[in-house]
C-alpha cells in the first residue's frame, strides 16, 4: 500500500513539474508582450511630441580645428558626434575620435556621454564617462573643441 501511495505521489509531482515549466514560459511571454506594448506606446509618444531639431551646439572655442567659432550645429533627440561617417555631426579634426560623443534629450534634460573617445568629453570640465545631465548654457568640450549648449 505505501508503495502505491508513493507511486501516485511521484506521478503527481512529475506532472506538476512539467505543468509548472509551461506556466513559467507563459508568464514570461505575458511579461514580454506587456513590455512590448509599453515601449511601442512610448515610442509613438516620443515621435509625435518631439520636433526633429530641439537644440543647438554653438562653437565657442574651436581649439586646433578649422571650424569657425559661432558655427551652430543642430541637435536632434539623439545626436552622435565624431569623425566617422555614421555620426549626425561629423567633425574632421585629428583630436576627435571616429565615434566621440553622444548627446540625447530625455524627460526635459539633455544628457552627454563619451562614446569611448581618446581625448574625452567634458561637461563644464567634468569628464562625461557616464551620462551627465546638461542644461542650455553649459559648456560641452569634445576633444579640444568647446561648444555651448543652446536651445
Amino acid at each position, binding site marked *: 500500500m505505501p508503495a502505491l501511495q508513493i507511486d501516485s505521489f511521484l506521478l503527481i509531482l512529475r506532472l506538476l513539474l512539467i505543468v509548472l515549466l509551461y506556466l513559467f514560459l507563459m508568464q514570461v*511571454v505575458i511579461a514580454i508582450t506587456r513590455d512590448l506594448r509599453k515601449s511601442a506606446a512610448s515610442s509613438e509618444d516620443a515621435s509625435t511630441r518631439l520636433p526633429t531639431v530641439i537644440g543647438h551646439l554653438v562653437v565657442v572655442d574651436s581649439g586646433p580645428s578649422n571650424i569657425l567659432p559661432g558655427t551652430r550645429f543642430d541637435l536632434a533627440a539623439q545626436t552622435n558626434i565624431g569623425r566617422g561617417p555614421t555620426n549626425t555631426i561629423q567633425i574632421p579634426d585629428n583630436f576627435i575620435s571616429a565615434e566621440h560623443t553622444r548627446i540625447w534629450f530625455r524627460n526635459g534634460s539633455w544628457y552627454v556621454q563619451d562614446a569611448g573617445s581618446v581625448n574625452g568629453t567634458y561637461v563644464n570640465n567634468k569628464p562625461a564617462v557616464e551620462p551627465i545631465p546638461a542644461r542650455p548654457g553649459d559648456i560641452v568640450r569634445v576633444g579640444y573643441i568647446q561648444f555651448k549648449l543652446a536651445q
Partner: protein
Amino acid sequence: MAQIAQTIQRSPHYRWKELGLLIIPFLVLLVAMTQLLLANTDPRSSLNTSNLPTIQGLIPVFGLIAGLLVTNVVFSIFFRKADQVLLPLAGLLSGLGVLMSTRLGPDISPPDGPIPDLGSKQLEWVLLGLIICIATMFILRNISALARFKYTFAALGFLLLLPSVIKGILTFKSNAPARDVLAIPFFSLQPSELLKICIIIFFAAYLGENRDVLAQGYLPLGRLRLPPLRQLGPLALMLTLSLLVFLVVRELGLALLIYGLFLSMTYLASGKLSYVLVSLAIFAVLVFIAYGILSYIRVRFLIVSTNVVDWSAASESIYQNVLGAGQIVQGLIALSSGGILGAGLGLGHPAGRFFVPVVQSDMVFTAFGEELGLAGLFAIIGIYLLIIYRGFRIAVESTDAFNQLLAAGLTSIFAIQTFIIAAGNMKFIPLTGIPLPFLSYGGSSILANYIIIGILLRISYNNAVERDGTT
C-alpha cells in the same frame, strides 16, 4: 539589513516583475527536490539515502533560491532599470542544471564517480557565477570602453589558451579529441570559454567601426562584391587564428561555434547575404579538407551515419569498435525511453556503468530527455528561445553600433552553442564536446555564461538610463 529595507521602501519601483517571475522557478526547484527525495526512498530507483544523503538534496535547492533572491535585491538597489526577465530565465536553467547534477552525481560510474555532492559543487559555481555577473555589471560602467581595447582582448584570449596549444601540439600525433584545461591552483578553468567572449568583443568592435565599408563592398570578384582587403584582413586573420587554435587543441565544437558567430555577426553588421553564402562555401571546403586530413573527424561522421533504427551488423560493429559511438547510441536509447512525459526525476537510468558516458556535461541533454521527457525538453528549448529573444531585443534597443553588435553576438553564443550540442546529442550533426549553456556540469561554462548575462543586463541598464534619464 535595516538599510536595505529602507532603500526598498524608499524606491517605489522595486524589481517586482523579476521577483514575480522567480516564484515559479522556485516552485519548480522545490517540486523537483521533493521528487528526488521521494525517489530516494523508492527501492526501484538507483538512488538511495546512502549514495544521495538527504542533506545533499536540500543544499543545492535552498542555496540557489537564496542566491537568486540576494541577486534580485542587489539588482533592485543598484540596477533597477536593467532587464527583469533574463535573471529568472537563466536562474531556472541553472536550477535545472544544479538539480540534474545532484541527481546524476551518485550514479556516475567509477573511476570518476560516484560523486554524492556533485549538486553542491555545481551550486558553488552558480553562486560564483551570480557574483561575477553582478561584478561585471559594476565594472562595465561604460561599455564603449571595451571597444577601444579590442586588440588587447583578442591577445588576452589567445594568451589564456597558449598552454593548451602547447599541450595540443605535443600530443597532436595521438589524434584523440582533448579538452583544454588550464590548471590554476584551487580550480581548473577552460580558457576557451573566456576566449569566445574576447572574440565577440573583438568582432563587435571591429565590425562596428568598419560596417559602412563592409556594407558598401568594392572589391569585385566575379559577380560578388567583397570588402577591400584592408578591412577584411584583421577579421579573416582573427578567424583563421581561432580556427587553427581549436584544430590544434582539438575543440571542434568551439571551432564550429566561432565560425557560426563570425557568420552571424558579419551578416548583422553588413546585412549582405553574399558574405554568408561565400563564408558557407569556404566552410564546406574547410570541412572537406579536414575530413581528408583528420581521422577523428572521419570517425565523428561515421558515427552520424550509423543506422540505429534498423540495427544491422554494420551498426553493431561501429557500436562495439568506434570510440564515442556508444555514447550517442546510449543517448538515443535514453531519449526514446523517456517518451513524452519522461521517467520522472530520479527514476530513469541516465548515468551508470552501462549507460551514457559523461552524461553530466556533454550528454546532459539526453538525461533531461529521459527524466523530463519530450515535454520537458520542449520547455527547456522554450526557455533558451526566450533568453535569445530577450538578448536580441536588448540589441535592438541600444543606440550605438558596438553595443548592438556586442549584445547580438553574445546572444548568438547561446543560440549556436545550444544548437551544436543538442543536435550532436540527437545524432543530427557530429557530436562535439561543448557544454549546454547553464545545464551542463562545469565551472568555466557557468562563469562564462553569467559574464554574458552580466554584459547583456548592463547594456539593457544603459539603454534604459539613456531612454528615461538617470535613476
